[in-house]
């Protein structure tokens, strides 16, 4: 018999028992759909996390005050980054590969405009901020170096702050209040979503001098960002930053550093590895249902062999060889699992697409739907293999039947 004839025979046998066929492949459908869903959502989550981590660009180095990233959690030195550090790090002979160096101060407070108010993230930074974050205003402009030097009461507001405080527009040039201090809106940012450091949409950005003097009453920075000229110079720049800060902080013993450095590229790589490992782990858990589905198929195929004993005997009586019968039943189980695999891929893809739309809307993330091609190929291959493995035993049982005994079977 030809491949086509085996396929036809298998399909017509499966069509004969449509509801049983459907129930039999359910395990495979669920297993493959779960794998596709997990892989798709895993890749979507990975992309989202990476985009947040990489919001700064992978050639940024973040200086964090204190030693909280190494050893036991500590609050020692949380105020260790000062204006002098910023000035020293900005000097080309200290950190020659630094393209830009900016400070960051974080806080949150109520912003008010007439009767409207909104709790916003407050960021104090320098005029260089839009260069590093690629955050140029859509209306107005970013504050200038003079504003920073003069502690000007100016603010650049995020898109959500704009719509909350100025539902009827007209935000640019207006004056908003933060902690009863009045700030003039000089720029409005486009919708940008969130990165690991900054939530632009919910944020207001003011000169760091104004933030220190008028809002927080502090003299330190929460972060200093060093934008490196090229990725190749990251390691050397990290060393330069360390040396410069040790010099300004009078630290001789590196274990006594009152700062730590986060390398965005390493962070991105680590996040990538973790999310990939997590995705594969979850997919492996989902694969257990494939095993259960495979056993289900074997069970039903064994029932089918018993039920079709007479048919097997008849086929043998009219000339089917043992190999013919073996192949016929193997074909049936492979067609069954392959069908389950294809339905599972369609179902999993649809579910992950719907999930990506829902997550994107509910959590206002920029969640991207990703079709896991690898997962789909794996689904097809795995379901075929399951069909082969779990189909062999029933097929052998069928092929071994003697035609006479099978024909006598009622």
């Amino acid at each position: 018999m030809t491949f086509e004839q085996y396929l036809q025979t298998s399909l017509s046998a499966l069509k004969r028992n449509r509801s049983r066929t459907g129930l039999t492949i359910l395990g495979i459908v669920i297993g493959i759909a779960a794998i596709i869903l997990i892989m798709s959502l895993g890749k979507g989550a990975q992309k989202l996390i990476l985009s947040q981590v990489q919001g700064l660009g992978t050639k940024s180095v973040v200086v964090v005050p204190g030693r909280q990233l190494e050893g036991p959690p500590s609050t020692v030195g949380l105020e260790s980054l000062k204006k002098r550090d910023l000035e020293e790090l900005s000097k080309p002979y200290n950190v020659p590969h630094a393209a830009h160096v900016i400070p960051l101060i974080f806080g949150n407070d109520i912003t008010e405009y007439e009767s409207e108010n909104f709790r916003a993230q407050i960021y104090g930074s320098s005029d260089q901020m839009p260069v590093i974050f690629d955050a140029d205003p859509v209306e107005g402009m970013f504050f200038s170096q003079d504003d920073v030097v003069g502690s000007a009461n100016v603010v650049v507001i995020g898109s959500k702050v704009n719509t909350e405080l100025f539902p009827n527009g007209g935000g640019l040039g207006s004056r908003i209040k933060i902690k009863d201090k009045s700030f003039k809106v000089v720029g409005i940012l486009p919708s940008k979503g969130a990165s690991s450091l900054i939530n632009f949409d919910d944020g207001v950005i003011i000169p760091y001098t104004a933030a220190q003097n008028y809002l927080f009453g502090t003299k330190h920075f929460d972060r200093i960002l060093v934008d490196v000229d090229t990725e190749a110079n990251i390691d050397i720049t990290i060393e330069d930053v360390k040396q410069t800060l040790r010099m300004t902080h009078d630290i001789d013993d590196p274990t006594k550093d009152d700062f730590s450095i986060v390398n965005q590229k390493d962070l991105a790589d680590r996040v990538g590895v973790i999310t990939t490992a997590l995705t594969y782990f979850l997919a492996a858990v989902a694969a257990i249902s494939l095993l259960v589905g495979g056993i289900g198929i074997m069970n039903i195929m064994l029932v089918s062999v018993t039920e079709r004993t007479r048919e097997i005997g008849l086929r043998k009586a009219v000339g089917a060889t043992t190999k013919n019968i073996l192949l016929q039943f193997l074909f049936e189980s492979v067609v069954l699992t392959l069908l389950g695999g294809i339905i599972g891929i369609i179902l999993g893809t649809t579910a992950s697409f719907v999930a990506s739309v829902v997550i994107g809307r509910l959590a206002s993330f920029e969640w991207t739907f990703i079709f896991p091609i690898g997962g789909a190929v794996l689904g097809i291959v795995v379901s075929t293999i399951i069909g082969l493995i779990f189909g062999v035993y029933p097929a052998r049982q069928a092929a071994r039947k003697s035609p006479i005994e099978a024909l006598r079977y009622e």
Partner: protein
Amino acid sequence: MSNIIEVTNITKSFKDGDRVTEVLKGVSFSVPKGQFVAIMGRSGAGKSTFLYQLGLLDHPTSGELMLDGVDILKLKSEERTRFRLERLGYVFQDYALLPDLTAIENVVLPLLMQNVPDDIAYEKSKQALMRVGLEKRMYSLSNKLSGGEQQRVSIARSIAHDPKILFADEPTANLDSESSENVISIFKELHKQGQTIVMVTHEADYGKITDRTVLLADGVIIEDTINAHS
């Protein structure tokens, strides 16, 4: 006339635990080409078992079996299947049709198993169905056909590949008299065309249409008669 079937001292035993039942106790028998033989006997005499051995649906415990000049017991299992497929035809008492297939699909099945190209296989099947008078029912599902029609499909399937020997196991046992006559007339016609036929039957009347009647009892041939009309 040369013998197309040569059986020498065939035995067949079945084991059921420690108990061994000998159903055929050394049967010797030969059939010349073109002969129409009726094998008769009471229930349990071993008729069907004997036919299964001749039709290669079963394997004798001992003895010799030559069909169409081939020493069958020396063939491997796959070779025997192929031999049966190509040179023998078998008509079963209960038709043994696949109920979900049409008449022509049932007939074509053994030809496809022989790897006969589709177009030739279907043409031969059509011819066979025409020979048994079923040209108008060839696309009907076999389970929608009457008993007589189903048996005619079964005959068409057994002759579509022009077998050297045709075996029939009580082909009219499940049929009414009109259908039985119909089926028997097909066998007569096939015989007239030179077909070798070995038929197990209960019907003593069929002695009138066959060349020879062999009577089996308790696993041995007790009577072998050449019928007067032949």
